[in-house]
């Protein structure tokens, strides 16, 4: 199923809006969508909802033989699945091609190569048996910025995961003990890797604006993107800026500074979520899992609107002004709206094909709202529509409805 084409109107609309400092969902340029992290019944199963992007991560473990070259190190493998459920243009089994490769590469660099998980701690007996942790990330709904969401889900799942305790006999046989007999062992992560991605929109040739946490539409319209993988201790674990637009050095450094600030917030959020869940899990005997924690899209939109209505005046939220949008000077907030003095309603809903011209203060003198015939009752006329070159149609305004007997064939 091909992706619905992006019309030039959507493209120009978004670029113009970004040029004068606005985004579709009225977020600031450097403001992220609100995220909720929730955990399932098992240890190590975590779901992250970033705006409408939904990702599910599940950690599983098994005892395996270590690699010959690294006898005392455990193994960690990360796999990303972009299921067709995430977006219409993904075919089952297709795997989304280059998008998944890039995502896989960023996650591997961020979590595996950055040594944030101490692999030695996964060793049971050197050269014989070690733990292999496998993180399976499934993208449930793709609304942009998969890197941040899947990275957050993977890290939260790893920190939340507890592997069962283990009994090792002399001759090397390993017995895995169930959770009931002895408490499971938490996994220790030295640093929390975080991924922050920026979309670069270039309205004119050299002017380049940076948007954080792009939605799917913004991702389709942006010219370049910058994905920074880092951890709150000041290490940059991976940085991908695959071109398509030329940036100055200062612009990149400003992005990195903002990314580090953002990394602290995300790290704390993940930390907090894991601790809260572990506490609640300790008290109640049967963990409730995802049952009442998942938020439906409608619910999310409703909360966003109530939140919008709460914040009265439109000033770009403080957090973004202080971050001083790296690119150009602060785009001027849209000048004060003079309340439309003339309140004559210029939109007249008229019956089907009667049209009222509007006051011509709008530049094109086209008629305004053409409101199609209301009810969708298809009053099938028995007249065959002649399909000649010059398409002649019976005028079928609603008023002179003939009473025709409905035949079942019409109703199909």
């Amino acid at each position, binding site marked *: 199923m091909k992706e619905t084409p992006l019309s030039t*109107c*959507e493209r120009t609309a978004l670029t113009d809006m970004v040029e004068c400092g606005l985004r579709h969902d009225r977020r600031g340029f450097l403001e992220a969508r609100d995220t909720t992290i929730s955990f399932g019944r098992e240890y190590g199963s975590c779901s992250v909802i970033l705006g409408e992007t939904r990702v599910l991560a599940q950690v599983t473990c098994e005892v395996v033989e270590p690699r010959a070259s690294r006898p005392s190190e455990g193994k960690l493998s990360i796999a990303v699945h972009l299921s067709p459920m995430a977006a219409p243009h993904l075919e089952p089994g297709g795997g989304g091609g280059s998008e998944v490769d890039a995502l896989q590469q960023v996650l591997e660099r961020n979590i595996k190569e950055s040594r944030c998980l101490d692999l030695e701690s996964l060793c049971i007996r050197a050269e014989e048996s070690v733990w292999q942790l496998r993180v399976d990330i499934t993208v449930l709904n793709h609304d942009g910025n998969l890197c941040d969401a899947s990275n957050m889900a993977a890290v939260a799942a790893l920190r939340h995961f507890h592997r069962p305790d283990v009994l090792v006999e002399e001759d090397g046989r390993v017995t895995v003990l169930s959770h009931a007999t002895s408490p499971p062992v938490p996994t220790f992560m030295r640093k929390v890797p975080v991924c922050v991605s920026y979309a670069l929109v270039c309205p004119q040739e050299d002017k380049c604006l940076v948007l954080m946490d792009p939605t799917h539409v913004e991702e389709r319209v942006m010219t370049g993107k910058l994905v920074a993988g880092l951890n709150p201790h000041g290490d940059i674990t991976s940085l991908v800026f695959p071109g398509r637009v030329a940036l100055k050095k200062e612009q990149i450094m400003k992005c990195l500074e903002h990314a580090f600030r953002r990394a602290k917030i995300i790290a704390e959020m993940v930390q907090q979520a894991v601790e809260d869940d572990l506490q609640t899990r300790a008290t109640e005997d049967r963990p409730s899992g995802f049952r009442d924690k998942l938020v439906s899209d409608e619910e999310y939109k409703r909360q966003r609107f109530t939140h*919008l209505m709460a914040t009265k005046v439109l000033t770009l939220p403080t957090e973004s002004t202080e971050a001083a949008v790296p690119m150009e000077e602060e785009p001027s907030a849209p000048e004060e709206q003079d309340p439309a003095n003339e309140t004559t309603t*210029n*939109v007249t809903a008229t019956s089907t094909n009667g049209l009222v011209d509007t006051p011509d203060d709008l530049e094109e003198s086209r008629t305004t709202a053409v*409101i199609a015939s209301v009810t969708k009752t298809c009053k099938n006329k028995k007249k065959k529509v002649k399909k000649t070159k010059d398409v002649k149609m019976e005028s079928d305004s609603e008023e002179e409805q003939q009473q025709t007997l409905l035949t079942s064939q019409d*109703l199909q």
Partner: protein
Amino acid sequence: MGSNFRAPDMSEGDPTVVLPGDLILEYDPEKTQDRIFLGPGLRWQDKTITATKCGLLRKTPKKIYFVDSQQKRYVPEKRDFVLGIILKKRGDFYMIDIGASMAATISYLSFENASKKTRTELDVGDLIYGKLIVANKHMDPELVCIDSYDRAVGMGRLPDGGILFTVPLHVARLLIKPDNPFLHNISKKVTYTIVVGLNGRVWVKTAREGEMVAVMNAILLLEVMSEEEANKKVLKVLESFI
């Protein structure tokens, strides 16, 4: 036949929820004289009318019954006004994406004062507002931008600028209802032009970008709230945007 026979008491007029397979009422043309008309979502088979979609069963004063269901994927219907995006130019046809399973076609002649010589200049990605004149299971849907007197009547290529977004079909139908005050409430705050396609695509254009975002979000309110609640809240949302 559906086992749960439930004749809805249509008296007090508040819509009841029906599920596919529910029996609506008996109708036997020989026995009764009055005419009733069935809209989408209903099926008349061997003298009983059953629902085929889940949604609210509505009855209009002119005895038209139909099921108002919540749906996002548009199924082309004759005489629907839809908003399409031009995919590609095929000889003297344009292929247009109207969000249905198949792309619609429109001949270059079916525009206002189009002729063999003067072809309207349309390129890929433009927006077209037209009326479906051919739409059935067996053929590709066909679009025209002129009415029976060859006048554009607001149809044709939309001007540049403006913002396009999609809403579920029931919201689009709600917006178009003549007696629906929603669009008037919005117009109290903002002067805007709006084009609503029955395939769930809405195009809004105002003088300033800020207002466009405001109107868009106001309309998106309808997606999550009931009509009455949305009417109450729309003004506050507009304030928070402008």
